[in-house]
């Protein structure tokens, strides 16, 4: 997925965030964490999930069920529609099973 057609994106549209993964999301992605440049137009958690799914089979498997994987921005739970504005650390993980 490329942003070749986006001609007038301001510099702030591409920025670096840390992604962290836990439990079987981590295993399917194959990474515990990574630093990525958010593509222009990636405004919500769901936008980010869809971009990640396009990267390779591991991500595609991890996010196969888009509504199952939970997300947190800066260590606070968020819904899929949540804005990425201000996000520095974005986490993805399965439903919690602690306690």
């Amino acid at each position: 997925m490329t942003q070749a057609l986006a001609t007038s994106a301001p510099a702030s549209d591409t920025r670096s965030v840390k992604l962290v993964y836990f439990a079987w999301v981590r295993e399917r992605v194959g990474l515990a964490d990574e630093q990525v440049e958010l593509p222009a137009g990636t405004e919500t958690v769901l936008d980010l999930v869809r971009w990640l799914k396009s990267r390779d089979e591991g991500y595609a498997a991890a996010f196969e069920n888009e509504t199952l994987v939970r997300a947190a921005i800066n260590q606070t739970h968020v819904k899929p529609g949540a804005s990425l504005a201000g996000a520095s650390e974005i986490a993805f993980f399965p439903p919690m099973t602690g306690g």
Partner: protein
Amino acid sequence: MPLTIRIQREDFDIAAEIAALSAGRRDIGAVVSFTGLCRDEGGTLAALELEHYPGMAEAEIGRVAAEANARWPLMGLLAIHRYGRVAPGEQIVLVIATSAHRRAAFEAADFLMDYLKTRAPFWKREHLADGTIGGWVEAKDIDQKAAQRWE
């Protein structure tokens, strides 16, 4: 309100934690503790492996504890959650609530456990008695429903 939240690999001592919450106080009338233990699942389980999200685990339990403190007149609240490998019979989680009266202590401990189950970023994986690594434990609807009781 004295608040203790610890995420640790080590085991914990219930009596010592209750004593610490109560030390020097003579206004506490009720102490409720919940201890969650690792079950052996009929002998099939060798251990649970607990993964967590460092930083967020403490922060999220802190947010749940603040909600409990806003809802009930508490005198103290404690949550300890272990991570790493835990064998059957061993302790995993401890919640303690103290109050002047028993209803607040019971409800706050119950609430904290329900929310800890559904909101605290911990994941359990099974290590089986036959030496294989089992799957990640799936979240249960019953836990979601339990948490919804408080809404």
